[in-house]
């Protein structure tokens, strides 16, 4: 059982920072990876975002006030970094975020790190039709099984609002998949 207070104190102390950070990376790298991957879709972008996220965590650990769980804080940084990269890609391609996302999905088929079948590809397309925040809520609940309580802390939104958003998302996706 992770002793959060102890870990945070170790992260803030120069002597124990290195070792504590190594532990933090080891503990959260996979969960954060998948959280990011569901947002940005490509492995390469995910790799960039994941590393940037941990570097930011390392550099800003002294600013972490402990007013939320440390993983909530890290997830929040990861989410923001992921959205930033989408914005950056869109800017580079001189398109909107939605168009950039659609493009990312369209190239998924030829992506060597996507082994989904036709339905899974269609599911990705369906998710892409949702508003960005709703996509994140859906991904966190559907693929990562994150509890609403934790999601509320990460996304700084009430549990009720998140539940409602999720159910609407599920309905929309189901409709999308059943059409044609």
């Amino acid at each position, binding site marked *: 059982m992770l002793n959060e207070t102890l870990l945070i104190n170790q992260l803030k102390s120069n002597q124990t920072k290195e070792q504590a950070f190594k532990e933090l990376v080891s503990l959260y*790298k996979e969960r954060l990876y998948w959280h990011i991957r569901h947002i940005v879709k490509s492995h390469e972008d995910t790799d960039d975002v994941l590393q940037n996220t941990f570097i930011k965590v390392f550099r800003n650990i002294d600013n972490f006030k402990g007013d939320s769980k440390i993983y909530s804080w890290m997830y929040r940084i990861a989410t923001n970094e992921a959205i930033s990269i989408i914005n950056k890609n869109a800017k580079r391609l001189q398109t909107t975020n939605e168009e950039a996302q659609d493009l990312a999905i369209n190239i998924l088929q030829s992506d060597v790190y996507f*082994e989904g079948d036709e339905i899974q590809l269609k*599911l990705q397309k369906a998710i892409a039709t949702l508003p960005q925040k709703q996509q994140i809520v859906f991904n966190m609940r559907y693929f990562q099984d994150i509890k609403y309580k934790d999601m509320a802390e990460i996304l700084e939104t009430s549990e009720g609002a998140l539940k409602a958003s999720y159910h609407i998302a*599920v309905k929309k996706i189901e409709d999308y998949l059943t059409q044609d």
Partner: protein
Amino acid sequence: MKKKLKNIQESGFKVPKTYFENFEASILSQANLKEKASEAGFTVPEGYFDEVEKSILSKTNKKEPTKVISLLNKRNIIYISSIAAAILLLFNLSLFNNTFNFDSLETEAVDDFVLNNFELNDFNILFSNTELSESAFIDYNLSDETLDYYLETIDETDFILD
């Protein structure tokens, strides 16, 4: 009249109107979806997670030494050099501007210099003729003004031999 516990049939709690219908629909929808596609289909390169951990740690564990800000960085060297060059240029320019003007030199300054730094015999070298001829004195005519000035300014004590 107080209600006795055994008489209370209802809890008093209420639910939103279509809650149960929506709940069921939602669960069913999710169940349907999960049946079709419970996974996203994303995969990861083999060994990636070990590699990424090493990569992250190598980027963050660069020992950040207490920042020693070297004064000899490129920017400072350029600053110092340019200031030095400017000072040098200033000196050089002021030297070149010193065109020596005889008008500005006071006669008194010259007199003092000659009297203080030269013996009478030092001037012997200026005489190219070793012998003085009489004609040198006859041919040269001193103007009356010059003679007057000489007579006025001579000091009798100069003729007293030491």
